[in-house]
């Protein structure tokens, strides 16, 4: 039985349909990440789950019980959750009072509140900020106050809407650590909306992709990032190589796909004649320097190997993004250091190789 379950949930603002028939169950103790482009409806869904908003249609079950559309019970259920909003709103009070609010509202004792608040402020690294006017905090400081304010309640369910959008990488790492520790210790159920794919991947057991108000795919990180169910998801999760083609042969699960006259091998059950997209993650493509024809055989597991020319190299932190032309256009991600070692630059000849298992085949026209 799921802890939170939404059934056939739809919601509109005015004429605009924002959520369209969502079904989703989240188990106790599970960490669930909601990813999706801006405007997809993530915040709206979280608001509805936090019972801040009454959905236009559909039902919510919490801990097996149906959540009524109004009445006292909603407050009781809401008190078992806490929600960190996307735009953290601090109250015009001291940092301490901001964090203490929720406990006071639950009627906790004074000195228990003081202990808890001091403890959590330390955890988020704001121990010196107790008496600061919360309105004068910097963006990241305010975000940490919002986090502390929610965590101090030790909720059963933690709803997070872009919890680290305003934080630098080191603070982000600390906060992620904090969240996952708290969640683990208290067996907290966690639902987070995030733009940060790696955050979604790291902090969650399961990911849901929300596109244009529809939950198009849920699954673990591997499912989502490696086996998107349709082109839109593939595009969104960073499958930069999405190639249109037709299955021309299928040998016991190894399909040959014709892409503009080039043949790619992929693991897929689709029959001959099927129009498909072949999707390859850029980091799954390995680049090798042709070394008298010998190197290409070294990596025997890579079924696909194409001679190609580098057209552009861009550095992205530790990685280099390499655009290559091998008859069709491919993007590969390699570490900056190997790009340097291979001396990759525009015009350079390389072999692009990738495994048949590294190619994900999607039926064309699916998911519409």
């Amino acid at each position: 039985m799921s802890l939170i379950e939404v059934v056939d949930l739809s919601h509109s603002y005015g004429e605009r349909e924002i959520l369209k028939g969502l079904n989703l169950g989240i188990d106790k103790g599970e960490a669930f990440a909601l990813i999706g482009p801006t405007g997809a409806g993530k915040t709206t869904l979280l608001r509805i789950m936090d019972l801040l908003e009454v959905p236009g249609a559909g039902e919510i079950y919490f801990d097996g019980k149906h959540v009524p559309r109004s009445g006292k019970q909603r407050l009781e259920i809401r008190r078992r959750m806490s929600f960190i909003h996307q735009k953290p709103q601090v109250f015009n009070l001291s940092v301490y009072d901001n964090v203490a609010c929720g406990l006071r509202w639950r009627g906790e004792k004074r000195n228990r509140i003081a202990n808890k608040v001091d403890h959590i402020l330390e955890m988020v690294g704001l121990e010196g900020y107790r008496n600061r006017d919360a309105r004068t905090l910097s963006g990241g400081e305010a975000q940490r106050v919002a986090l502390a304010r929610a965590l101090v309640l030790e909720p059963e369910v933690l709803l997070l809407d872009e919890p680290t959008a305003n934080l630098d990488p080191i603070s982000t790492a600390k906060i992620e650590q904090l969240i996952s520790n708290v969640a683990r210790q208290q067996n907290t159920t966690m639902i987070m909306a995030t733009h940060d794919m790696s955050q979604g991947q790291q902090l969650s057991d399961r990911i849901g992709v929300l596109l244009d108000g529809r939950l198009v795919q849920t699954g673990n990180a591997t499912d989502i990032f490696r086996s998107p169910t349709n082109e839109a998801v593939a595009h969104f999760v960073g499958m930069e190589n999405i190639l249109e083609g037709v299955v021309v042969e299928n040998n016991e699960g190894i399909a040959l796909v014709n892409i503009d006259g080039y043949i790619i091998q992929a693991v897929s059950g689709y029959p001959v004649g099927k129009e498909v997209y072949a999707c390859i993650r850029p980091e799954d493509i390995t680049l090798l320097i042709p070394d008298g024809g010998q190197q290409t055989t070294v990596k025997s597991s890579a079924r696909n190997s194409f001679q190609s020319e580098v057209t552009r190299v861009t550095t992205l932190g530790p990685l280099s993004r390499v655009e290559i032309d091998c008859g069709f256009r491919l993007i590969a991600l390699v570490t900056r250091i190997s790009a340097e070692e291979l001396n990759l630059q525009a015009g350079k000849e390389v072999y692009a190789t990738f495994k048949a298992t590294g190619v994900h085949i999607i039926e064309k026209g699916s998911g519409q």
Partner: protein
Amino acid sequence: MTEIWDGLTKAVQLLISLDPAVMEVAGRSLTISATACLLASLICIPLGSLIHFHHFRGKRVLINIIQTLFSVPTVLVGLFLLVLLSRSGPLGELRLLFTPTAMVIGQMILITPLLLGLTISALSGVSKEIADTATSLGASGSQAIRLVLKEARYAVLAAVMLGFARAISEVGCALMVGGNIRGATRVITTVISLEAGKGNLELAIALGMILLLLALIINIVLNRLQQR
């Protein structure tokens, strides 16, 4: 112009000499208006918040009526209460006419629309997200309202000050239901109009100054309270 300076001088004299008649009247003004303002605030701030935070049919109309009642002339409230509290009226049994209690009731009625309307307008200045955040953190309806009121405290305070100001400065209702009876229902404004009617302009001006002094004291006290 001399009258104004004479008035100021007179005000200082009256204050320094602690003129007992003036002190009595000033004290009564303060008591009646502060009571009226306090009671009305206790009713109107929560009520205004409820109106602000609830969606119901006719809310716009209600707010429009409240704003219209900003214009209710004090004499009209006085007349209304007079009719109500008169011995021959429906509440005549209470024998409240020409007592300070009646004046408190009158001033409460008078400032109710003001306090309601300004509470609503003060709350409308606080972004909806603040209330949402409070609700998310487990605030009940009334707890969230209290937080939002705190956020709007400056404007709410201005509303209360204005309510008090309107109460202590009004004369029509006080005269009508109090009667300006010496030793019983005489307040500063009724004395001012009495003295102005008698041609004692300096005294009237002096009393006006004393009234402003009272208002200043109350404002300072309220500001202090708000800052805590």
